[in-house]
């Protein structure tokens, strides 16, 4: 093997404070040499290879499962069927939903019925991957196909075929969010803009590394060891523990490098549970590496949402008073993390705007499609997309300039802290200025002239669009009570451990599971500032390990929060460690603590370097020489400092659906310029800018990288990426061959800018960021809208392939319904 080379892009030449600098990443040395440890690179002694047997039908009764031919095949250790798995379990998986949704019984493998294409009915363990795959084909399953429902709105019809008979309905959750007085607003407005239907399509971030795990149910100890790439492993433990009858302290979850996740690696706990039972049955570890089609078909998709009967009251000056809408969230065949999507959107009820009257009638439905779970921008981007569509449609219909209309309705810089109609508190920001910066970066003045010159009928048209979003971060998990008031969840938090090791090494353990967000680097920056040393001399343990005990129930890497919760925990733990070092130093140097300082791994009397003790000396006194310490010091100092950062939340009001649901609101304002070919509908992005305001940036280059990534995934979704099902529930994009993930030729160069509006609510003034709020979907749709004429249909879908743009360009020729009407009071001037 190649020896590990070290990067020269080091940090030695720089000086403190390290926070705020684009310090080189600790992760890169191993990753650029192919020395990362991703899930398929890991395993356990004596492991077998698992392969799931999956349904070709979207909805069918399981008549029989016969594993005998598979068991007779060479190299096969065991086959576990759905019925057998159920017999080994104590209870079905915990459900978040109340009422009908709570009655759903989900087990590790399908029992009696399959409910989407790819639903797992059995799993095989064999001595090689190929033997397992071959044997999986020998498991004989008899299916009796059933009627299929793939439309999220039709699924709510009383006559629709029901997926889960025990629930008796496909409606997993329903509730009305009603703030202000929308009826009054609709009566009082100068104009009411009505939009028939908007549809936010299904897609996923599709991390390049698929899911995977090696699970061992240890025969002797009963310990269940899980090496996986789960991004919220202790959530999985809490879900599957009662089902498997395994207490949390008999689990040992761990992870190392994770090859992207974007929310998509939160909810594959059914697979983990099935592997645990398979291991238990076979008496050896079970290793499973998901393959790409399995991922596309069964891992997870993002929430597909349909908005119906949208009504928007608008005043003559362009003030938008609110919105009334019915929303249907299609979450697929099972409730994985759902129906939390039915409340998460309400972190951003009015989006970036000051509208005060909002009524959303929200229904979560089950369909014969892949279950959804969080996907970058989870649930908020769907809602924000609808709001941004509303802004541009209002502008288009009533003749407002989209820039001026936004600026008129934005929450203004002097309004912060700004309380929204449902009690969320926007912490800080400057949206108008962010928009101006973005318009400048995208060279919109140039493109406006170009648009003017080209007009229409010259083969190409230019369109300019804006996407204004909030990237709400650090959830108050109490919002789950708005879904189900009986849930014992609220608040949030993250843990970290800071310690000196036996020879004085500084080490940080995190409760998080980074997937490219550079937690080792930024944690080291923060710890280095507190200990007054170089981040190069701070080691941050790679990966998550339950055995470190640096976790709480919320631990993981998701929902734009590390800069607040994770770094808050690192700060707290490291400050405790500094205090302990100073206490031991005070004894050793015979000087009061107040006269001591730390410098590059040494504790010294300020101004007198001759009186100093290095960290190795501090560690020696505590770990291997403690008889010299006075008793009170021995009993209080251990140099192992755990801290849990807890944000200041209250329990939301579940009845009125109000409360502060997230701590921080980073903003992202994107501007997109497209050039559309009139003959073909081919749409090319010719200029793109993104301005991020996430408060104080701990590492600006890493922040910029997140902005690029969120922009690229959104652009891909807006133009290229979609999961479609035919009427029989067959997925039409089961691999990267059909699912066109954006390539380097598709994704434009992205101009990025920033503002720093520090959050008054966080320990470091930072805000969580990274998800990005789906801003490109909003901006691309707005740009396409800008290309269309007065008589054309409105852009009503979040996915716009060239074919769809072509249809939009020609919608007026075919007298298609425009999908929008405006009712104005007689006296009102548009």
């Amino acid at each position, binding site marked *: 093997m190649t020896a590990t080379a070290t990067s020269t892009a080091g940090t030695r030449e720089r000086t403190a404070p390290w926070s705020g600098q684009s310090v080189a990443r600790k992760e890169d040395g191993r990753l650029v040499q*192919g020395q990362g440890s991703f899930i398929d*690179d890991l395993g356990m002694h004596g492991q077998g290879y698992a392969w799931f047997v999956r349904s070709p039908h979207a909805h069918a009764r399981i008549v029989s499962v016969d594993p005998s031919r598979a068991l007779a095949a060479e190299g096969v250790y065991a086959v576990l069927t759905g019925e057998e798995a159920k017999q080994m379990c104590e209870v079905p998986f915990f459900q978040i939903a109340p009422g009908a949704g709570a009655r759903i019984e989900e087990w590790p493998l399908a029992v009696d019925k399959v409910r989407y294409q790819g639903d797992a009915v059995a799993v095989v363990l064999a001595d090689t991957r190929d033997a397992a795959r071959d044997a999986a084909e020998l498991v004989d399953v008899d299916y009796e196909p059933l009627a299929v429902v793939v439309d999220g709105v039709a699924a709510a019809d009383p006559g629709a075929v029901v997926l889960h008979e025990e629930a008796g309905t496909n409606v997993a959750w329903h509730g009305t969010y009603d703030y202000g007085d929308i009826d009054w607003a609709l009566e009082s407005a100068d104009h009411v803009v009505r939009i028939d239907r908007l549809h936010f399509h299904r897609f996923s971030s599709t991390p390049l590394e698929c899911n995977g795990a090696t699970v061992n149910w240890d025969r002797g100890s009963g310990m269940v060891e899980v090496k996986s790439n789960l991004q919220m492993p202790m959530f999985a433990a809490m879900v599957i523990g009662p089902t498997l009858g395994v207490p949390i302290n008999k689990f040992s979850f761990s992870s190392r490098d994770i090859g992207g996740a974007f929310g998509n690696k939160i909810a594959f706990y059914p697979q983990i549970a099935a592997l645990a039972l398979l291991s238990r049955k076979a008496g050896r570890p079970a290793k499973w590496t998901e393959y790409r089609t399995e991922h596309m078909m069964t891992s997870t998709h993002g929430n597909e949402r349909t908005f119906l009967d949208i009504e928007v009251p608008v005043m003559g000056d362009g003030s938008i008073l609110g919105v009334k809408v019915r929303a249907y969230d299609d979450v697929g065949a099972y409730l994985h993390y759902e129906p939390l999507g039915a409340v998460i959107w309400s972190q951003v009820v009015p989006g970036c705007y000051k509208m005060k009257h909002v009524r959303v009638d929200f229904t979560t439905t089950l369909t014969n499609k892949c279950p959804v779970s969080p996907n970058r921008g989870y649930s908020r981007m769907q809602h924000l997309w609808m709001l941004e569509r509303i802004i541009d449609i209002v502008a288009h219909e009533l003749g407002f300039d989209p820039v001026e209309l936004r600026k008129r309705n934005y929450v203004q810089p002097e309004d912060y802290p700004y309380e929204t109609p449902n009690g969320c508190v926007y912490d800080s920001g400057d949206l108008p200025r962010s928009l101006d910066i973005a318009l400048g970066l995208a060279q919109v003045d140039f493109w406006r002239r170009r648009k003017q010159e080209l007009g229409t009928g010259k083969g190409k048209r230019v369109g300019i669009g804006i996407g204004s979003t909030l990237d709400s971060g650090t959830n108050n998990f109490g919002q789950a009570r708005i879904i189900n008031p009986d849930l014992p969840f609220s608040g949030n938090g993250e843990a970290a451990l800071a310690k000196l090791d036996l020879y004085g090494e500084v080490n940080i353990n995190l409760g998080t599971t980074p997937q490219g967000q550079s937690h080792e680097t930024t944690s080291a920056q923060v710890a280095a500032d507190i200990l007054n040393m170089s981040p190069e001399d701070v080691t941050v343990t790679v990966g998550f390990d339950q055995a470190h005990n640096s976790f709480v129930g919320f631990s993981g890497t998701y929902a734009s929060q590390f800069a607040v919760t994770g770094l808050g925990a690192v700060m707290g733990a490291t400050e405790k460690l500094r205090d302990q070092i100073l206490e031991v130093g005070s004894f050793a140097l015979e000087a009061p603590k107040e006269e001591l300082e730390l410098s590059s791994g040494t504790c010294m009397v300020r101004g007198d370097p001759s009186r100093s003790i290095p960290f190795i000396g501090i560690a020696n006194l505590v770990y291997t020489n403690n008889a010299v310490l006075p008793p009170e010091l021995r009993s209080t100092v251990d140099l192992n400092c755990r801290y849990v950062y807890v944000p200041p939340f209250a329990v939301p009001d579940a009845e009125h659906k109000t409360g502060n649901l997230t701590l921080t609101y980073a903003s992202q304002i994107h501007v997109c310029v497209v050039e559309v070919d009139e003959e073909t509908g081919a749409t090319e992005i010719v200029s793109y800018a993104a301005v991020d305001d996430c408060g104080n940036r701990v590492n600006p280059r890493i922040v910029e990288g997140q902005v690029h990534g969120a922009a690229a995934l959104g652009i891909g979704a807006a133009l290229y990426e979609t999961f479609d099902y035919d009427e029989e529930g067959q997925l039409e994009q089961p691999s990267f061959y059909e699912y066109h*993930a954006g390539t380097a030729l598709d994704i434009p160069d992205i101009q990025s800018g920033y503002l720093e509006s520090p959050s008054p609510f966080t320990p470091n003034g930072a805000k969580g960021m990274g998800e990005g709020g789906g801003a490109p979907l909003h901006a691309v749709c707005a740009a396409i809208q800008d290309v269309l004429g007065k008589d054309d249909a409105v852009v009503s879908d979040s996915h716009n392939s060239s074919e769809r743009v072509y249809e939009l360009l020609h919608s007026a020729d075919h007298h298609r319904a425009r999908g929008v009407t405006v009712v104005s009071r007689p006296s009102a001037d548009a």
Partner: protein
Amino acid sequence: MTEPSTTHAIEVTINGKIYHREVEARQLLVHFIRDTLDLTGTHIGCDTGSCGACSVILNGKLVKSCMLLAPQADGAVIDTVEGLAADGELAPLQESFAAHHGLQCGYCTPGMLMSATYLLRENPTPTAEEVRRGIKGNLCRCTGYVNIVRSILAVAEANRARLTGTSAEGGQQ
């Protein structure tokens, strides 16, 4: 009649080291590299030749190692990501990816580096457009390619300076 053989004896040179192995006829080259030889830097992101995470350089050509069977590589000379750094020093491209934040999760990075290495061998001073075309077969879901393009262009810039004799910093692949 004897059964047709289902295994082949192959000899492959990877990063300068010669390997002799008996392999199953159906084994993919990428599984041979990863599982048989334990060179796990080469990754798998799809099964359709779409993502490029398994890219290696075989007999001087860039290939996706999930699209070849191991027996087809008999006699081949292959470079993988593990061979890029030499004598404890990172290759200029590796340095540049680190310096320009050209990677986040790092999963596409080995394949991306091999594509970029091949690109710069063929064309030491590509334009941004040529860089984008050169890596179009490699998917990255984290970076939006912006910093990957910057990383490769920085090495191209050093190559250009070296070729025109203005400066000798960095350079090559």
